[in-house]
């Protein structure tokens, strides 16, 4: 038998339990509200100004940044053989691609145009480059561009998708892959979304086509990096020369391969008429992107002074406009 506890029942004063029941909820609510205020008070808020999340600078994809760059030019035997000979003169593909590398290849594949119209990089050249990279032991090769026309059409019509897949590579574009925000630096660039496979690549190869451009007069390697970034690109055309040089400063590729298999001499950058296409059958492989673009400019009969971005790029220390001093013809 339990004895009743006299201190709980029938007491005329407020018991401990009554006190808790009366004041407990208020005390708990007060504590919760105080904690909320202390935790959130003066926080900047979850909706940050968009420019506050700073991007990283881009990586450097060059294999030997300290030694001076070179250019090797080959011609007359079609894109496959031209590429092979020029690469051999540069020390062979094995010098640039290591076993297991993730390789990103950036052609100009901006337009819904055929290879013959010469608005895009030659598909045969891209296919051969993919094959060589894989033969050198690359783990994966992605051919990618942020196209101006519809990406599926541009990759199909240009023949680049087919050539890439036939050689064992993969295709990516702005609608099929994500982006990473990078701080590209410079005066006009700043932060941009960059196609993710480029940011993740161990090696990066730029494969522009030599062609006329209505705004920049000529479009070559540095202008080709416009296809690596995603966002309000048309705004960059206000200061195209500064923007091109800064793109060249931000993206330091392992190799620049200049495609002059067909040169679009007018109506660029889109072209269209076959009358404007000149079959030069030349390919240059370079580790100096400024010299490579300067050589390409000569094919369009431009002196370096007529493409002001070359001088800006030289000032930024990206290479030399005196292309003859670093070039070999093979």
């Amino acid at each position, binding site marked *: 038998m339990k004895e009743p506890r006299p201190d709980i029942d029938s007491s005329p004063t*407020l018991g401990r339990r009554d006190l808790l029941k*009366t004041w407990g909820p208020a005390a708990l609510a007060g504590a919760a509200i105080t904690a909320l*205020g202390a935790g*959130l008070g003066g926080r900047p808020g979850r909706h940050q100004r968009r420019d506050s999340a700073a991007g990283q600078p881009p990586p450097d994809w060059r294999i030997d940044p300290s030694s001076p760059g070179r250019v090797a030019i080959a011609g007359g035997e079609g894109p496959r053989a031209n590429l092979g000979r020029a690469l051999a003169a540069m020390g062979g593909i094995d010098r640039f691609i290591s076993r297991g590398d993730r390789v990103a290849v950036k052609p100009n594949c901006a337009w819904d145009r055929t290879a013959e119209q010469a608005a895009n990089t030659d598909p045969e050249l891209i296919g051969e480059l993919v094959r060589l990279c894989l033969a050198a032991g690359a783990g994966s090769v992605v051919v990618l561009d942020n196209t101006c026309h519809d990406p599926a059409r541009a990759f199909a019509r240009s023949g680049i998708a087919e050539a890439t897949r036939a050689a064992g590579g993969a295709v990516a574009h702005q609608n099929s892959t994500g982006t990473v925000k990078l701080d590209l630096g410079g005066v006009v660039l700043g932060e941009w979304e960059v196609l993710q496979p480029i940011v993740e690549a161990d090696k990066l190869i730029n494969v522009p086509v030599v062609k006329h451009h209505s705004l920049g007069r000529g479009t070559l390697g540095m202008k080709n990096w416009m296809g690596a970034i995603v966002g309000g690109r048309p705004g960059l055309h206000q200061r195209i020369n500064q923007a091109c040089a800064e793109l060249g400063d931000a993206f330091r590729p392992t190799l620049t391969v200049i495609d002059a298999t067909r040169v679009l001499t007018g109506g660029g950058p889109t072209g269209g008429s076959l009358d404007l296409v000149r079959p030069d059958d030349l390919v240059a492989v370079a580790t100096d992107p400024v010299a490579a673009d300067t050589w390409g400019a000569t094919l369009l009969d431009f002196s370096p002074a007529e493409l002001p971005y070359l001088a800006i790029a030289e000032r930024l220390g990206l290479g030399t406009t005196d292309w003859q001093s670093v070039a070999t013809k093979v």
Partner: protein
Amino acid sequence: MNFRPRARHLRIVVQTLFLVSFMILFVGLAVERVPGRVASILLSLDPLTAVGTALADWTIPAWTWIGLVILAATAVLGRFFCGWICPLGTLQQLVSWIAGPERRKRNKINRYRRWFSLKYVILTVILVWAALGADHAGWLDPIPLLHRAVASGVRPLWFGGITPGGWVAFGMLAAILLLSAWMPRFYCRAICPLGALLGVTARLAPLRIRRTGTNACSGCTLCLMACQGADEPLDNHRVSECHVCLNCLPSCAEDSLKFGLPVVGSGSSTPPLDVGRRRFLVTAVATAAIAPVLRATGGGEARTADAIRPPGALDESSFLARCITCGACSASCPTNVIVSDIGTTGVEGFFTPILKMRRGWCEPSCTRCGDVCPTGALTVVTPEAKQAVGGPAEVTIGTAFLDRGRCLPWGMATPCIVCEEMCPTSPKAIWLEPAEVRARDGRTVKVQQPFVDPELCTGCGLCENRCPVGEKAAIRVSSVGESRDPGNRMLSRRSEVGRSEDST
């Protein structure tokens, strides 16, 4: 006649003090000598401001933490804010005191009605919407509502002229006061989301109106005569509705009501809120479904040429998460350029501030709107940041564009240089080029034609304000180029002048 001081007399003094200070502080919004946060402190007292921004933006900005102190006190004392502080409540009480129902009908009109629970549904909508990132508490929250009605509905009678947003804001206040002549504190009882928030919190309060166990209730309903909240102290007292006005205490014929702790032995119970779990869930889900549709009507990311926000405004989605549409910015503006919007910025932008340059302009040396903003939807900026002196300004609100068909020197062969003359930046964002144009009669007229430098233009709108071309200026500001939204721009990047290496 003998006067016995009672608790409600103290309440009337406190109510009067807060109503008068609301009026003084409101005028103080426009007086630069009064610190901005002090002028808007009544808005910081409002607990719903803090709770709304905490949900929408995970922050309790500036002085709004004071509202949490009020909320915590409500968990002890009940809805004293409604009965003692809220100036809109006081105004309603005044109206019903002067023009309300006659005394013998009041015990009927002051009964509780089930539809008073509408306010809890409204609170649910507001809190769910806030959790989804848009704080619209201010539309119905009485403190912003009253500020807005006076700022954009009453003040423009003297300054600047009333706008559609002002008419609607004033109409809401007028309707609330008129309805309180029919039923005392109708708005507090049925609509007010702040009252609902405080009501839910007040259910925890240990201090409340209680029946003493000793004296019985005779059912005389005298306590209902002067009851503000319709909380029925004679029955099962509804603490969530009670405004703690304390009018019932001296009215009880049996003297059996007190404000305090529970009486030992009296098993009084509080009736539940008339919002079932199902109604709460349906409301929450429906709000979550409709909110994105309303954002699609033009709020958030959408950019509108005429949606020119005050300087220092956060980017649009952050702005909508913070702005309580109180109109403190428009009341503080020395040129009356800021109006409560209706129609320009979508449904979510109802009552948010935009600038109408035909009314005024954004004075380059003035930063008052950011100083008084209670939630930081407008950040505090320095005058230097707004001024383009020796280069582009850090804070811009838009860009001026010339309409050459309307411009006198461009379209009418008539000399005019007003916009260039007015332009306050240094060097001037507007410059003139001499030109000789042929008039209709063959004369050659020498004019100076204006151009705008978009890098230097801050969007202040002084040019648009002073343009002599009638009802629609020949130079007009649109929102592109505003510094708050990096996406709403046309220039690739505002560069520091002189750093450019571009030779073309």
